[in-house]
């Protein structure tokens, strides 16, 4: 699946998006997998309460299943307006 990062999440990880092959069942499982990869992921995902997630461009929850999801995006709370 395509995993995207925005704002300071993108800056901490160092890339805007990447293709990730995973068996993760939920967003939380995916986060755990990414965290264990490298320090920059651990830093970006240190505090999940400071993050939001969108699945296929719809805001979602960290316990949501990833079955059939093609695009996951992680970002801080939005600041539009």
């Amino acid at each position: 699946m395509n995993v995207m990062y925005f704002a300071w999440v993108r800056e901490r990880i160092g890339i805007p998006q990447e293709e990730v092959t995973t068996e993760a069942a939920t967003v939380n499982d995916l986060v755990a997998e990414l965290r264990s990869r490298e320090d920059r992921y651990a830093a970006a995902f240190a505090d999940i309460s400071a993050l939001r997630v969108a699945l296929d461009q719809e805001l979602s929850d960290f316990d949501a299943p990833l079955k059939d999801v093609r695009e996951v995006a992680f970002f801080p709370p939005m600041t539009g307006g």
Partner: protein
Amino acid sequence: MQVRVQSERFDAGAELNSFADGRTDIGAVVSFTGVVRDTDQTLQEMQIEHYPGMTQSAISKIAQQAMQRWELADCLVIHRYGALKPGAPIMMVATAAAHRAAAFAAADFLMDYLKSRAPFWKKEITQQGAQWVAAKDEDEDALQRWAAD
């Protein structure tokens, strides 16, 4: 209903005039324009990042909710992204309705939802450095009042 996400500057006055032009079914037009603020005179620019695939549809859904909730004749949302200078317009909303109460309430609703539910992130570039603007708890709290009734 019009939703535009763009980097180009817009002319709020011209947008507002064309929004209501020729309509005879409305008695009220309400608009809000957000401007890049620099009260301390330290801001060099405001960088606005967005999620291109999601932004247009997220704003359209918010606008549709406003259209359904109030009897609006029309609504307009323009939101910019990219590097903006102090004093530049960031975004505008306009609502048109038969009566002012609906037009005001819908504009207020649109602003509250755009602040916390449209995928934009602001970064302030100052002489001292760069900093992401943090979301405010009161912006999230502001959504609660629309859930109450």
